[in-house]
Every structure is written in C-alpha cells, then in structure tokens.
C-alpha cells in the first residue's frame, strides 16, 4: 500500500525549488498572472485580420506568434513550436489577445460536470477506428 497512507492521509508538499522556475518571466517584464486567471495551456488561439494587418507595428517577440497562429492552435503548441517557456507563451498570447491581434477560445471552467460535453467526447472517440 502507498506506505504513507498507513499513518493517515498526507499531502505531498510543494517543492522548495518551485520559485526558480519563475525566472523565465523576465521575458515578460516580470509579470506573472495569478494562477487561476491565467490562460489555459489548451486555450485555442488564432490570428485575427487586425493582427495580420498590424504585423509590421508589433514588437519582435509578438510577430512570431501572430505569424504562427494563422493556423489555429493551442497555447501549448505556440510554446512548443516557438521554443518558449509555457508561462511566457501564456503572457505573450494574452497581451496579443488584449490588443485584438489574436482571438482566443478558452475552455469551459468545469467540463468534468458537463454531461453533454462528456457525451460528445465519448461519441467522438468511439468513432476512431
């Protein structure tokens, strides 16, 4: 049995070195959003017409994202394809969305209680052969 359960429930502690991973936020001028206000890593991102037209006026670090997201993809894909830390990608995407250069489709907050949604995903997977 998970040995520590014998002495009652125990919750693993947050690692002491968690803070060291905040260093990449230097790319975003040190801004870090509160965790639950942050963009989700699976949020869908697509460049708007306004974003394409604004390309020449955008900051260097924003241009790659606007060019890449001509094809719809998730924030996680943006991070992977542009070799960005996931947290940095979130902040940059949120900036561009606020400017109107990107359109973002965020997930529902509580999909695990949404029976219609669950059924749709089940039917979709059942169709895979």
């Amino acid at each position, binding site marked *: *049995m*998970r040995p520590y*359960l014998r002495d009652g429930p125990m*919750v*693993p502690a*947050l*690692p002491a*070195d*968690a803070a060291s*991973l905040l*260093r*990449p936020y*230097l*790319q975003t001028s040190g801004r870090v959003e509160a*965790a*639950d206000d942050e963009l*989700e*890593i*699976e949020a*869908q*991102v*697509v*460049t*708007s*017409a*306004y*974003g394409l037209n604004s390309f020449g006026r955008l900051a260097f670090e924003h241009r790659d994202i606007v060019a890449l997201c001509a094809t719809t993809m*998730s924030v*996680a*894909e943006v*991070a*992977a*394809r*542009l*070799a*960005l*830390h*996931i947290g*940095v990608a979130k902040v940059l995407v949120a900036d561009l969305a*606020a400017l*109107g250069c990107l*359109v*973002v*489709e965020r*997930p*529902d907050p509580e*999909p*695990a*209680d*949404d*029976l219609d*949604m*669950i059924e*749709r*995903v*089940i039917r*979709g*997977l059942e169709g*895979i*052969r």
Partner: protein
Amino acid sequence: MGSKASAEPARRPPRPVKIVIAGGFGVGKTTTVGAISEIRPLTTEAAMTSVAAAMDDAADVPAKTRTTVALDFGCITIDETLKLYLFGTPGQDRFDFMWHDISRGALGALVIVDARRVDACYPAVDYFERIGLPFVVGVNLFNGHLDVDLTELRWALAVGDEVPLITFDAREKLSVRDALLAVLRRTRERARARAAEHATG
C-alpha cells in the same frame, strides 16, 4: 478582446477539452499520446531548457532538469467545434506544481502504471485524489501480458472501488482509445452522481 469588429476571425476556433496522461518516468506517457494523437506529440522540454539556460546567471542548469520538465501533448479533433488535448505530465513529484496548470479544467486523468514499478505512480494518484479529478489507473502491458494481479495492484494503490483499474497497450491506437473512453465513462459516472445529488439535495 472581442469588442473590436476588426478582430473577428474568419472562423471561430474549436472549444478545447483535455485529458491528463500521468504516471512515473518511462511508463509510456509519450507513447500513449503518440499512438492516438493526430499531430506528432510536441514537447516543451527543449524550450524550458533554452530559456532557463539563457536566463540563469550561472548558465549551468543541470542536465537532469532538462529531462524532467518535459510536457508532452497531442490532440484529437472530435468535431469541427470540439478538440480533445492529451497532456502528459512530468512524472517526478518535485514537479508537482506544474500539475495544477495541466489538470485545471481537465475532464479526467489516465494514470499509467508499469506493473514492475507500481510506486512510480503514487504522486499522480495522490494528486488527483487531492484535487478531486476523476481518474482511471491503466496498467501498460509492455510485453502483451500482465505481470501483476489486479486485486493486489488495487490494494497496493489503495484506491477506492469507484476508480477503474484497466490494462492497455500504449503502442496500440485502439487500446489507447479504449483507455481514454474508460476515463470519460468514469467522469460521466461522477457527473451523473453529482447531478443526482444536486437534484435531491
């Protein structure tokens, strides 16, 4: 962000949903994602390394860090308006804090177990129990046969009877599909129970 008429896209992006693929190091998370994903599984591992190295004054990030912060993911188009993402979490419990990001808003989780190293999945089981995310334990049949008794495994994991224990082959698309379906059915079961509770309570 939607107020500017000029910012309207040609088409609305699909709504994303996700399932977490968890388990210890080397249990087959990446293989599982790759077996069914319609894109080649991507990872943020390299990105993490290069950014961390560039930003670190010492510039000597240990190689160990580079291999353990990988986040693997893939996706499956359910229909035009719905896309399912699969995120493979780093297995080590010292990266527990990353799990919040991956698990927040997930439909459920598949905890992959290598029957030879059952304890490697304990951090994942602990975490999903703690945050109340529905999960299924899937024993990856690396060589096509089961080396462990499922009853013994259930005892070792100390998970409730409501948690399904299944076997699957991470290399087989349809086997991975069925494992994901087991997760979704578990999620559906809990959602129904909650709805019934809400209706009567």
